[in-house]
């Protein structure tokens, strides 16, 4: 049996023999080479010659060494059309659209979520009123982990860290006075499991409000990485079942909600958990590759799915690494879609992404420093060409953001968009000797790690084997050691720590009585709904799970019958069984 070719092998084959037309005149390059050597030996200090390569040490960095200076010699073979192309044209390195932000500004999509649905509803309205252009909802831990507010396991945690949702009624309150067909809503349903449960609630809400599903726009996360690798939880279903749900969600949403982004590959949370920027992208792309292979196996056209795929990245503090790798993965994604999957639609070849500035790069000490950090990270995201942005607030290490902190995050975006002028020029750093060399380097490294994943039998296999869990355990511990030794500097924490006490910041106070309120509501719902309908819907879902068909039409029916989230999670657990998560050590 022929061994499956890696993506790298396929790309190498298909791209071999493509004609290259170097932009730099070879004569000029030769001349530069001898002049550069002379310069290095006469003008440059011996110390700098010896330490020509320096490796920036930052939180979540990829430890890529940098030259002291970049010149055409770092990329003598540079071919504008082959390596960059113009934006909106293959290979899309410079951007997925010709006009980028002149045509469509990046969506300012700040996360909101705390307390009861009406509490978050207020904050959503506040943010929209202040100029946010997208909604981005984060759920509380019981909702994320799929337990009802009145489940004993949810005690003390309802409405903390995110908004509490149990049923369609909760979603109705959450989106009170908000016209679903006039906004774009990102529902951060991290997992395939909770996406299959929660997104149908949003769909049923639209139904009840008389809004057809082809009029709503937004996204869900729906990522196995979140459910089986990045999450710490009490109960897990096996990776293969989780991956199936991921694909079921994609299939159903693609078929029935045409303007909805059905997956946002991680990315962000994985990297925050403890991997480099390279691993972050390799994992997300490997996940996407495996998803597309499965969708093709299910009989779908690759373009049909790929046109709406999206990614979710986390820029940390190595400014140029962040810009370079976003460009790198955009070019790499194009190559994979065109040459591995034979995609025909340009949309399939676009690496569309949402970016959230890194949370773990922020500090508890001197929290106002975080305003600066997040601003630089946001700028890197924009210079890299992100479609949508969330800026972490300066009080992240303390609690959910206060209104003031959330507003400042939004203002950071607005200042970039309206005052800096950077959005007027597409891919402003294109052509930089440094950025192009680093983009090439990042692309190679990302592809290296994709190959590593493929050699294990694919992404789901890598999860099952615990490869990624252990990688995270190692990386995060090493990074901690580097922080403690001062190898990685964090201003105000281990470098230039203020000796005078600084004024304390305002820390968010949660609304009172949320848990009781939510418990009361869910109990009332259970008492008032049609129990026969509920049972019927849950049983049908259980059967569907066992039969191996797409389960989402059944979870939609459950939402219609006013089933609660915990009730569906119970069905999944019974049908798929539980999985013991691998060790991080």
């Amino acid at each position, binding site marked *: 049996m022929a061994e499956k070719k890696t993506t790298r092998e396929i790309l190498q084959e298909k791209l071999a023999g493509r004609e290259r037309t170097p932009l730099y005149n070879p004569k000029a390059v030769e001349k530069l080479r001898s002049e550069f050597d002379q310069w290095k030996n006469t003008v440059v200090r011996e110390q700098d010659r010896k330490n020509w390569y320096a490796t920036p040490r930052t939180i979540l960095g990829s430890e890529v060494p940098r030259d002291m200076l970049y010149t055409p010699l770092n990329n003598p073979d540079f071919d504008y059309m082959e390596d960059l192309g113009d934006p909106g044209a293959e290979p899309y390195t410079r951007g997925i659209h010709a006009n980028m932000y002149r045509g469509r500004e990046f969506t300012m999509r700040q996360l909101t979520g705390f307390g009861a649905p009406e509490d978050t509803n207020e904050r959503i309205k506040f943010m929209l009123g202040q100029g946010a252009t997208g909604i981005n909802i984060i759920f509380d*831990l*019981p909702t*994320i*982990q799929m*337990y009802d507010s009145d489940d*004993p*396991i*949810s*005690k*003390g*945690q309802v409405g*903390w*860290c995110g908004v509490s949702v149990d049923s369609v009624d909760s979603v109705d309150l959450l989106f009170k006075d908000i016209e679903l067909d006039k906004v774009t809503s990102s529902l951060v349903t991290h997992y395939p499991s909770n996406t299959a449960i929660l997104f149908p609630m949003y769909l049923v809400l639209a139904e009840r409000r008389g809004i057809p599903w082809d009029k709503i726009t937004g996204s869900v996360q729906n990522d196995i990485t979140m459910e089986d690798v*990045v*999450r*710490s*939880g*009490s109960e897990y279903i096996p990776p293969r079942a989780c991956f199936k749900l991921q694909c079921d969600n994609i299939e159903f949403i693609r078929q029935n909600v045409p303007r909805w982004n059905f997956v946002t590959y991680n990315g962000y949370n994985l990297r*925050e*958990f*403890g991997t480099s920027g390279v691993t972050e992208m390799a994992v997300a792309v490997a996940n996407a590759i495996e998803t597309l292979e499965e969708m093709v196996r299910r009989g779908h056209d690759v373009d049909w799915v790929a046109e709406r795929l999206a990614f979710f990245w986390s820029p940390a503090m190595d400014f140029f690494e962040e810009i370079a790798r976003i460009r790198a993965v955009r070019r790499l994604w194009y190559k994979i879609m065109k040459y591995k999957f034979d995609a025909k639609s340009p949309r399939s070849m676009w690496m569309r992404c949402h970016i959230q500035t890194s949370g*773990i790069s922020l*500090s*508890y*000490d001197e929290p106002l420093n975080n305003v600066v950090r997040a601003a630089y990270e946001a700028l890197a995201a924009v210079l890299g060409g992100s479609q949508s942005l969330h800026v972490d607030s300066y009080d992240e*290490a*303390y*609690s*959910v953001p206060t209104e003031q902190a959330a507003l400042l995050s939004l203002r950071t975006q607005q200042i970039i968009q309206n005052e800096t002028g950077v959005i007027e020029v597409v891919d402003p750093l294109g052509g930089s000797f440094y950025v192009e060399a680093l983009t090439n380097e990042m692309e190679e490294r990302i592809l290296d790690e994709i190959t590593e994943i493929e050699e294990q039998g694919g992404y789901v296999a890598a999860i099952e084997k615990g490869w990624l869990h252990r990688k*995270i*355990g190692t990386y*995060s*511990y090493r990074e*901690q*050691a580097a922080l*403690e030794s001062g190898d990685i500097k964090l201003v105000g*924490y281990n470098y230039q720590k203020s000796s005078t006490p600084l004024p*304390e910041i305002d*820390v*968010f106070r*949660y609304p009172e009585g949320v848990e009781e309120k939510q418990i009361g509501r869910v109990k009332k719902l259970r008492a008032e709904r049609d129990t026969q309908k509920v049972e019927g819907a849950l049983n049908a879902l259980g059967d569907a799970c066992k039969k191996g068909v797409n389960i989402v039409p059944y979870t939609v029916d459950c939402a219609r019958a006013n089933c609660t989230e915990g009730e569906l999670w119970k069905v999944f657990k019974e049908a798929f069984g539980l999985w013991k*998560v691998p060790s*991080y*050590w």
Partner: protein
Amino acid sequence: MAEKRVKVLMAKLGLDVHSRGAITVSSMLRDAGMEVIYIGNAVPQEIINTAIQEDVDVVGVSSLGGAHLTLGKDITDLAKSQKLQDHMVFLMGGVHPPRDEAPLKEMGFDDVFGPGATQAQIVSSIKRDLAVKAG
């Protein structure tokens, strides 16, 4: 006589999904020569039951989800009812507003750690807290 290794129970509080800190601290403590039993997510009753079962010296609780006061109190109340406070050290780590540190200590946590706590700080706090309990 060889010194008995300090035995630490590390738990994620309730449904909190964020385990990077707990995993990192577990590695730190192992490197410092302690025995670490990492149980992942657990509710207060489970944490106390395991602490008793495993006869640990230290109970380390990690919470970034905001439930540190509510569920934290359940832990310390249960500990008191089982008279564990006499010999077991209880630690709370994670993300908490500064104003919650005093209440946490008052309810029975011997030490509270936030983002940025180092291996040296945690290890020396454990040793000090154990000495206080013993003496």
